[in-house]
């Protein structure tokens, strides 16, 4: 109650901005028009009539999907950073927390890139600008996780998450994935606890979203680890423990070794049961990943139904990312003349 009273004092402007940005998210009718486009030029013409305005107007023809992708990301980053700049504590910490996920992705991207002998100069532009930090470029110095920690990460907010990974010996492909998962697990749990301490509606909304995120990771780690030689215990270490699956579901997941087993575990949780039932591996069916995305969109949409909380900032970023993925998907389908699957985007409204 007290928080509601004083919320607008510090965060009212940012919330208003965010809700304003949210109203620019493409509607079903926009998607309907987008999928009818014959060329990328049509796409540009149509996007002009939406909230994107003429963000592509200064690009020379012919347009490529990469350019669209860059511009979309640029716009999103600009909006987010504007929100970050006008935010007060604790909202600014909250927004920083959101960027940590991008930092993890960037670190992993760079390490995998260097494993494949790519030049750092080529890799840096591909990093997500939201997750960039000063020492990012020097990541290639590190050969072992310990070095990575002491040289690069110790000054970054990710340092506490990394402590569990130091024991790993080499930076090979599998280890990198394990590092990513461990980092992510620590990050999610930390973020979850942070939202808990914020309390109020923020905690209610964000914990729901983050719990789903944790469960999704647990499911995906299990499904992807079947033929990789990852032992059950190793796998269990990577499960984020802040989800609805904890603790029983995670124990079950640890023991399963087939897709059907995972499905059985999910069947005990009504919200996930529906998702697994709706998905399939046949062509034309929706994959479980798409189902997860749809559920995520739904959760994020729900965040906007309540007021005076920070969840909308997270939700907005995620929705906008989904929208960008949709536009890119449609653009790719148009560019590659592969129109049969053009409808496989995930509608937001």
């Amino acid at each position, binding site marked *: 109650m007290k928080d509601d009273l004083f919320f607008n004092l510090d965060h009212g402007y940012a919330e208003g901005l965010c809700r304003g940005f949210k109203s620019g998210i493409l509607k079903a009718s926009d998607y309907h028009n987008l999928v009818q486009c014959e060329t990328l030029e049509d796409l540009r013409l149509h996007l002009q009539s939406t909230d994107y305005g003429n963000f592509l107007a200064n690009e020379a023809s012919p347009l490529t999907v990469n350019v669209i992708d860059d511009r979309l990301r640029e716009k999103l980053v600009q909006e987010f950073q504007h929100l970050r700049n006008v935010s007060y504590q604790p909202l600014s910490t909250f927004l920083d927390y959101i960027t940590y996920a991008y930092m993890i992705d960037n670190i992993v991207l760079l390490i995998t890139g260097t494993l494949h002998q790519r030049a750092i100069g080529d890799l840096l532009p591909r990093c997500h600008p939201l997750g960039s930090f000063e020492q990012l*470029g*020097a990541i290639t110095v590190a050969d072992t996780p310990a070095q990575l920690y002491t040289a690069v990460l110790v000054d970054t907010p990710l340092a506490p998450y990394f402590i569990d990974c130091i024991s790993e010996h080499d930076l090979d492909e599998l280890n990198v994935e394990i590092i990513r998962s461990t980092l992510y697990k620590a990050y999610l749990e930390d973020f979850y606890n942070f939202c808990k301490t914020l309390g109020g509606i923020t905690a209610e909304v964000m914990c729901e979203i983050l719990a789903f995120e944790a469960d999704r990771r647990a499911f995906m780690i299990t499904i992807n680890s079947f033929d990789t030689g990852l032992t059950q215990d190793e796998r269990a270490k990577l499960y984020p423990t802040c989800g609805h699956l904890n603790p029983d579901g995670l124990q079950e997941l640890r023991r399963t070794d087939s897709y059907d087993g995972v499905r059985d575990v999910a069947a005990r949780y009504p919200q996930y049961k529906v998702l697994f039932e709706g998905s399939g591996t046949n062509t034309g069916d929706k994959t479980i990943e798409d189902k997860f995305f749809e559920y995520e969109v739904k959760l994020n949409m729900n965040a906007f139904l309540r007021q005076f909380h920070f969840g909308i900032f997270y939700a907005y970023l995620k929705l906008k990312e989904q929208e960008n993925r949709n536009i890119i998907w449609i653009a790719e389908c148009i560019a590659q003349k592969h129109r049969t699957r053009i409808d496989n985007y995930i509608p937001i409204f």
Partner: protein
Amino acid sequence: MTTIFRSEQMTSCQLYLQPDAAYSCIAELGELGIVQFRDLNPNVNSFQRKFVNEVRRCEEMERKLRFLESEIKKDELTLYDPDENPDAPKPREMIDLEAIIDKLDHELKEINTNADALLRNFNELTELKHNLSMTQTFFQDAQQVRIGLSENAHEQNVDIDDQYSSTMATGMKLGFVSGVISRERIIGFERMLWRVCRGNVFLKQADIPDLIEDPLTGEKVHKTVFVVFFQGEQLKNRVQKICEGFRANIYPCPENANERRELAMGVMTRLEDLNIVLRQTHDHRQRVLLETSKTIRTWIIKVRKIKAIYHTMNMFNNDIARKCFIAECWTPNSQIDTLQLALRKGSESSGSGSISSVVNRIETNQQPPTHNKLNKFTQGFQNLVDAYGVATYREINPMPFVLITFPFLFAVMFGDAGHGLIVSIFALWMVIKENTLKKKWRTQEVWTIFFGGRYIILLMGLFSIYTGLIYNDVFSKSLNLFGSSWRVKFDDKTLLKSDSVFLEPNPTIYNHTTPDQYRQMYSGNPYLLGIDPVWQLSDNKITFTNSAKMKFAIIIGIIQMCFGVILSLWNHLHFKHYHGIFAEFLPQLIFLVCIFIYLIILIFYKWSTYQGKDATDAPSLLIHLINMMLLSYPDSPPSSTKIYNGQRGVQTALLLIAVICIPWMLLAKPIYTIIKRRKRNNHLTVTNPLASNDIEMKNHNADEEIDMSEVWVEQGIHTIEYFLGCISHTASYLRLWALSLAHAQLSEVLWSMIFHIGLSMNGYIGGIASFMVFMPWSSLTIFILLLMEGLSAFLHALRLHWVEFQSKFYKGEGYPFVPFSFKLILEETPPDS
């Protein structure tokens, strides 16, 4: 019939255009700006329309032009505005234009890439130069330490501490890397080096004093030269990686002093060469841009016109069978001849004059747009009216009345001749300098608001001077222009005895005064204009002015509301809603007359019959009005006893008539609708045999069936709103008095609290003090009294017009006429922005 009181009569036209001639016809119409096209393909996507390719080509040209313009601006060249309005080019000229623009775009891009490459080279060399000169000092420092040691020692073994000697002892070679890094990264860089190499490196750094351009981004940044000394290959790798990660530019630096000197010399000569080449490229670029800057504005206008034309043509219906475009548009009746002429001209200029385009008037049940003929004087006032809602087609436009009443009501609230004078002078300046000011500060929103309303402000100022004279208020002081009608004729003894004395017009009447003490002090003729300045000195000034201003407010308000109701009669007559006159106009007017006009009559009666001598017996009109409603006529006190004979009868009759008006207005219109419907039903049964008609009629009836309950509800709301509104609106007009009181009091406070301080001191100090307090007084006058009070009076005047006045007759359900006009399109996005 054209009249300033209504919007223009509009016609819906269908244009049949030959495909060849369509373009030039539309171009002609765009120059004229007299037609508003209707979109005939609202369901077609923007990228599926016929001329989407042309529009796209225009956008491509616009993009290139924008690029050229930004390049011109980057070089700070002036852009020349075209002297005359260039015509929209022909479609075939468009290709030439495209080619020219494309060529320029290409050329400039090429120059830019060349220049960029050169510049990068140049910047790198500059960095290298700095690097060399800075490291030189590091090495020289080291040299001094090393004095006495043999020549073949490695010059880079430059450390100052024991590390140096140990290195020498083991004969190991120290490697080094030198480069340039941006200054804000140096701290992180140093820390990272320390961590990764576990402190086994030595970093020397020196700031480059001036800003230098970064070779990659071309931005001017602060940079720092650094040298890292280390031992062994492995460390070298790491250091290099870190440098890469921190985006430091590494430059080779020879170990030998002589080599360094040679390299530095080489760099200097190369820099000079590059400088020459760069200057040449720059000159070339300047020439190209200068050439472009002369014509670019013309091109921009041309391209925008082409785009607008194709955009309009996208709204047309393409009749394939008859090989023509069909356009539908609205145009004012008076302009149809011009329209036809323009089409003929367009067909001729396109060369296919054999079959000219056809204009066909069509009947439509769509509501036409509202188009008022305006000039720069009336524009501002029309905007005030339109902000509430654009007039329904052919409805009475309140603008001509608002033109006078708005400044007047404003002035009643703002009444101060001094303030009014300042406002008028400011507005007059804007009006006189109109042409030069129009182009200035276009992007300043606040200024454009003031400038757009310059004529409103001018009238407001002039009217304020008038009301200020009536109130006799000039900066809260009174002017004794015509000589006060009052004289103080007391002797000094009386004046010294008491704080205040009574001035009485006719002292002999009163018992408590004696004629020798109170001589005749009133000249017998009232002051010529407004309030007598003697009131300025009196204690009961506010009581007096309040009473007067309150009555002014009521009189003005009720007259304005009556006028509004009478305007509704005009609307009823024009739209031939004769039933509206009997069902709405009459009860409304009668109600207003019976109660409120009667009140005004009483006010005038009171003013004219009661003199100073019977001031205590004067009736209190407020009590009288309340008593009239309650039908009570008490015998005491004297202020509420009857004013004239037969008052009771007259008032009861008036009240009765007024009350009757309420059910009259509530019932008359719905009953009329019912009767009309019944009549038509009877009629319908007679004409039943015509089957087709029957269906039509039934459809019609179905609509009415739904309408009936709505009619009741609507009329109920309307009735309640009007009758309650009459009372609350009358009270609402009291804001005229309230704001005027507030304004007068505020300016008086400002005078007595601030300016008075200076004026009340004696001698030289008083002069200085007056000088000192003038500044705060004048600035507060401007900011609080003129700006804030002015804004508040403006808003209240606006409210009185929108709510109290316009609600009596104005529907405001129309939509504005937006003609297809190049002028509007070009103004919309001025080339400066």
